[in-house]
C-alpha cells in the first residue's frame, strides 16, 4: 500500500501527514507538485493520494484556488482517473479547499466547482479543537467512526453551498463530518463548537463513491494521545482520534 503526499508552493503538513499513513502501515513518499507534473505516470504506483494542509500560494485569490488551477491545468485528467478507480483521495484543510476548488467533491454535476470555501464567520483565523460526528456516510475513510475530537486551523473553513445543491448533497449522504457541541448535538452554527459558521455544521464532504474525502479538521495532528489538549487528565492510551481515519484507509485495502 503506497500513499503519495503532495508538497510544494506553501503546502506545509506533508511530513506529519506521511507519518500518520506510515504509522498505520502504508509506505509513502512526499512528491513535489512539479515532479508530479513532470511525471504523472508515477500516480500508478500509489493507492492513496493525499493533499495535506498548508497555505498553497499564500491563499492568494482564495484558499486553495491557485493550487487547484495548477492541478486543473496540468494534472486534472490523471486525478479524475485516480478518483474513478478503487483508490482513495484525501484533502485535509488546505487540501480540502483544493479539492473543493477542483470540484472533485461533491462532484454531483461533474463540472466546475459547485461549492466554495469562504472566510470564517468570526473573521479570524481559528486554531482550536472541535468535536465532529460522522454523518450517515458510506465513505471508507469514515467507516465505524461516530465522534472525533480533532483540531482545526484555518481562515477560510466555511462551506458555501447553493441551496439546491445542499439538498442533493444531503439526499446523497455526502456530508462527511459535522461539528457538534459539548452535548454531542449538532452545533447549529454556534461558535466555538462550529468554528467557522459552516452551513449545517459541515466539516467535511465526500464524493458519491465516498473514496474522495475533503475535510477541514486535521486528523494527522491528533494522531497520538499526547496531541489531545489536557491529555494528562485522560486515561492513558496510545492514539488520538485522528488515527481512526488513517487506519480506515489501511483497512480499505486489507
Amino acid at each position, binding site marked *: 500500500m503506497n500513499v503519495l503526499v503532495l508538497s510544494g508552493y506553501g503546502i506545509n503538513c506533508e511530513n506529519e501527514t506521511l507519518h500518520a499513513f506510515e504509522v498505520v502501515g502504508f509506505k509513502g513518499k512526499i512528491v513535489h507538485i512539479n515532479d508530479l507534473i513532470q511525471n504523472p505516470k508515477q500516480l500508478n504506483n500509489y493507492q492513496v493520494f493525499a493533499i495535506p494542509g498548508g*497555505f498553497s*500560494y499564500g*491563499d492568494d485569490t482564495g484558499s486553495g484556488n491557485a493550487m487547484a488551477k495548477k492541478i486543473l491545468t496540468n494534472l486534472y485528467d490523471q486525478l479524475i482517473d485516480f478518483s474513478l478507480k478503487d483508490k482513495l483521495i484525501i484533502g485535509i484543510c488546505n487540501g480540502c479547499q483544493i479539492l473543493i476548488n477542483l470540484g472533485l467533491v461533491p462532484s454531483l454535476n461533474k463540472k466546475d466547482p459547485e461549492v*466554495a470555501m469562504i472566510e470564517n464567520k468570526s473573521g479570524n483565523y481559528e486554531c482550536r479543537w472541535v468535536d465532529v460526528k460522522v454523518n450517515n456516510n458510506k465513505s471508507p475513510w469514515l467507516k465505524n467512526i461516530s465522534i472525533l475530537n480533532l483540531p482545526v486551523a484555518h481562515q477560510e473553513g466555511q462551506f458555501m453551498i447553493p441551496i439546491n445543491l445542499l439538498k442533493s448533497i444531503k439526499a446523497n449522504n455526502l456530508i462527511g463530518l459535522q461539528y457538534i457541541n459539548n452535548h454531542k448535538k449538532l452545533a447549529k452554527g454556534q461558535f466555538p463548537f462550529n468554528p467557522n459558521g459552516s452551513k449545517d455544521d459541515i466539516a467535511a464532504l465526500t464524493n458519491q463513491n465516498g473514496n474522495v474525502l475533503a475535510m477541514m479538521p486535521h486528523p494527522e495532528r491528533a494522531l497520538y494521545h499526547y*496531541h489531545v489538549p489536557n*491529555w494528562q487528565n485522560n486515561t492513558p492510551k496510545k492514539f488520538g482520534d485522528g488515527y481512526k481515519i488513517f487506519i480506515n484507509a489501511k483497512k480499505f485495502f486489507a
Partner: protein
Amino acid sequence: MTNTIQILSIEKTGKESSLQKEHNNKSIKIIDGYFFSRNLDDQKFTKISKLISNDVSQTILTKKNINKVLSSYCNFNWVVEIKFLPGVTDNIATTVKEIIKDNLKSSFKSFELGSTKIILIKGRKEDITKISKNEANPLIQTIKIYPFKQYLNNFKKNQFKIEKVKLPKKKYSKKEINLDISDYNLSLIGKLGIEENDKSRRGTLGLDLKSIKTIRNYFSTIKRKPTDVEIETLAQTWSEHCKHKIFSAKIDDIQEGIFKKYIKGATEKIIQLRKDNFCVSLFTDNAGGIEFNKDWIICHKVETHNTPSALDPFGGAITGIVGVNRDCLGFGKGAKPIANTYAYYLADPNKKYQLYRQKNKDPMLPANFIAKGIISGVRVGGNCSGIPTPQGNVYFDDRFAGKPLVFCGTVGIIPKKIKGKLSHKKKANPGDIILMAGGRVGKDGIHGATFSSEELDPNSPVSAVQIGDPITQKKMSDVIIRELRDENLYSSITDNGAGGLSSSIGEMAKESGGFIVNLEKVPLKYNGLYPWEIWVSESQERMTLAVRPANVKKVINRFNARGVEATIIGKFIKKEKAIVKYNKTEILNLDMEFLHEGYPKLNLKTSFPKIKKEKKKIIKKSSLIVKLHKLLSSPNIVSKEFIATQYDHEVQATSIIKPLQGEGRVFGNATAIKPLFDDEKSIALSQAAYPQYAETNPYDMAGCSIDTAYKNLIVSGANSKKIAILDNFCWCSSDEPDRLYQLKEAAKACYDYAVAYQTPFISGKDSMFNDFKGFDKTGKSVKISIPPTLLISSIGVVDKISHLTKMTPDDGDILLVLGNTLNELQDSVYSKIIGYEKSKNPVVNSKDALRTYRNFEKANKLGIINSAIGIDLGGIGIAVTKLAIASKKGLTIDLKLKNKISVDQFLFSESQSRILVSMKKNKLANFKKIFKGSDYTIIGKCTGLDVVEFKDNRKIIRGKISDFAKSYKQNIKGL
C-alpha cells in the same frame, strides 16, 4: 489613461464581516481587483476571470452587470480603492501572474499586473475616511476615495492606470567621494548621507565624525579616494545593528565590554563549572545551539523589529518573523524551523496618544492600528510558513507609545551530523561560488529610512519598508532543508537580513578570506537601482550560499525546479580582500580586516541615575474581591487567548503543552513541543521581561527576568541541566550615562544569575535606541523613551513526557506555595491598578530559588506534583484564580499570614521564585522529606465546588469560578 483592463470580483458573502462589525455598519462590501497592463479580449477576460475567482462565492463585475450586482447589496455612495505603491511587493499579483502564465502558456505573453482592494460603503464621508485609515497604510499603499457614481463611470470607461516603478534611466558611473573636506561637511555625510549630483542627500549613514575620519585615514594610507559603495558598505558593516558597538565598548573600568564580561563571560564560566557541556554553538552563528539528544541539535534565536513595526506594523512584524526564521535556516548548515515565539510591548490600544514625527504633520499610527497590525503580521508570517507559533506574550505600557517592541523568535532542529560531518560547522572555501537564492532585490529597507508619505509618489519607490513574503521563503526553505542540505551540496550558508548582501557575503567571507562580487548579476525587482542600493538592499527571502563549482549547476537546477530563483553573483577567495564590481568596473576594494574591525571603538562612561519613584496613587477603598476582579481583567494579566487561537500552534503535529491550558483555557507561561516522531524528548519554551521594574532597580529587573524565564521551564518539567537562555536588550537613549548605568547593572545581573543557575546564554541581540522624538498635538516637542526592557527567552529539554506538568488540580488536592512571599508590591500590577503601598521591588535570592527549583524537579520526577503554575504578575491571588479557571474546580485558601504582611500584600505581592503546586494528600509526607529546610506553605485545597474562596477566620473573598473566568477572559479594549 492607458488602454488596460481590470477584473473585479465581489464576494457574495463573508469577507466584510469583520469590517462591518468593527465599523458598526452593515452596508460595507469588499471587492478584489486585478489591474492588467494590457487589454484583454472577451474570451481572455472570461478565461482569466475564471482562473482567479470562484463563481459559487464570487461574482465577476462587468460593464454590463456592475450596476445591477452592486445595487442588489445596497445603495452605496462611497468607494475606497487601495493599491500598493509602485515597487512594494505585491504577493497576490505574483500568484495571479503565475496562474495565468501556467494556464494560458504562450498565448499570453508579457504583461504587468497589480492587485487592489476596493471597499464599498453606504455612509458619510467621515466613515469612509476612517475606514480607509484603518485598512491601509499610506507608507506602502495609495488610498483613493471616490463618490460611488464617479467610480462606476471610471470603471465603465476603463479609466484607471497601472503604476509601474518608473525610475529615471541613469547610467552608472563610478562615484568617488572627496573626504578632504571640513569637519562640518564630513559630519553632514555621516548624518544626512552622500550628496548626489543634484545636491540631494541619500539618507543617513549613521556614521559619527570619528568614524568618517577613520575612513578618511584608511584611504589616505592607500592613496586613493573612497567610492560611494565603499562608504555605504562601511556604514552598514559598522552600524550599531551589525557590530553591537555599545556592548563591545570599554565601559567605565570594564575593558573588554559588557558582552564579553557579563554575557559571554557567564557562559564561559558555566561551561568551566559544569563538566557536561551541552552547548554546541555559541554567539558566533545566526542562532545559538544546544544538544537535544544524541543525534540532534536544537537552536534558538530571538530578534527585534521595532522601528519598521512602528512605521508599518503588519509589514514590520511579518518581516520580523520570517526574518528570524532565516536565522534558523542559516544556523550551521541550515536548521529546520520548528517553533516561533513572540513578545510584544505595546502602548494601550484604547488610548489616543496623538504623536507627530514633525510639527503638526507626519502622525504616528494610532496605538490600536499598531497593535492589530503587529499581531496579524506574525499571524500571516507564521501560519503561512507552516511553523507553529505556540509561545508568546503581550505587555502594555504607555511608554511604548513612541516605539513598540516586537520580539520574534524561532527554534530550529538539525541532525548533529550530515554525511558524517558536523552540521553546525560551515566554511566557505576559496573558490566557492557565491549563490543568491530566493527573492529578488529592490529598494526595500535601504537605509531603513523614515520619510513622510508626502514624499512618496510613483517615481520614488518605497525604500523604508520591507514586506515579508512567507511563500517565497517557504519554497526556498523546503529546497534547502529537504534537498540540498542532506546531500551536502553547499559549504556554507547565511541569511540576508540587515545590510543585505554587503553583510551576508562580508560575514561568510571571513571563513574563506575574501570575496569578489559582480553586482550586475544580481536579479532585480525593477531596473534603475544604483550599485550601492543593490549591495545594501534589505529585500527579504534571500539566502546566500557558498557552493563548490562542481555542484553549482545541480543546486541551481534544484532551486529552479521548485519555482525558486538562484543566481551566481561572485566567488569567495583566499586573499583577505572585499572586492565588488559592477559591469567590470571595480567599485569596492577593501581589506577584510578594516571592513570588519576598522571602526573606532567606543569608550563609554556611566553615571548613577536619579531613580524615578512610582507616583503615589491613593488606594481606592474597595473590597478584595473587586480588587481581584480588577487585576484579572487588567490588560497585562487578562487572557491572551484571542492571539493563541489565531496563531497556528498545531502545525507539524508537535504541540503537546499548548498555549491554552486546562478545560478552562488559561494562557500558560510555558509551552512544549515534541519535535521528533521517534523520541519522547520535548522542548519547553518560555520567556520573561519586566520593563515595569527597570527604573527602580535595573539589576533586580534583570534578575527577575532570568528567574521567571528559568522558573517557567522548571515548572513545565524541563531538565534543569538542559536549560539555555537568550538575551534581548531593548534599551533607550544609550548615549546617556544614566541609561548606560542601567545597562551595565542589568548585564551584571545577567552574569550573576545565569552563573548561579548555571544556565548559559547561547545567543542574544540588542537594540539600543528605542526613543521617539517628535511632537504632541499642540506642537510641543516630546521625547518618549521605552523603559529599559530585557527579554529573556528560555529553551529547555524535557526528558520524558511524564515529566510535563499541568495546570489543573484535582478534587481533594492540597495546595502549597513554594518559596517565600514578602512585601514586594512596588511596580507591581497591584500598585498600578489599585494603588501604591509602601513596599519594595521584587528581588531574586538565587540561593533560595535554586533550592526550591531543585526540590521541585526531584518531586516532579517522583510523581509527587499533580499540578503547578509559576507565580508572577498579580501574585498568589492571580495564580490561585488561574488554577481554578483552568481546572474549573473550586479552591479554598486559608490565609495564614507570616512576616507581618497584610492580606493585600500576601495575595498580590510579586515576590519572585515562587511556584503554586497541588498534590494528593498522601504525597505530602514524601514531599516534606524532599523540601526539608526549604520554604513552603500549605495554603489550601481543591474542593471541587464551583467557587474560589480565600478566608481567615471570616470569609474574605468568595466568588464563582465562572465570574472570575469572565473577568479573566474580557476583551482588551481597543483590540
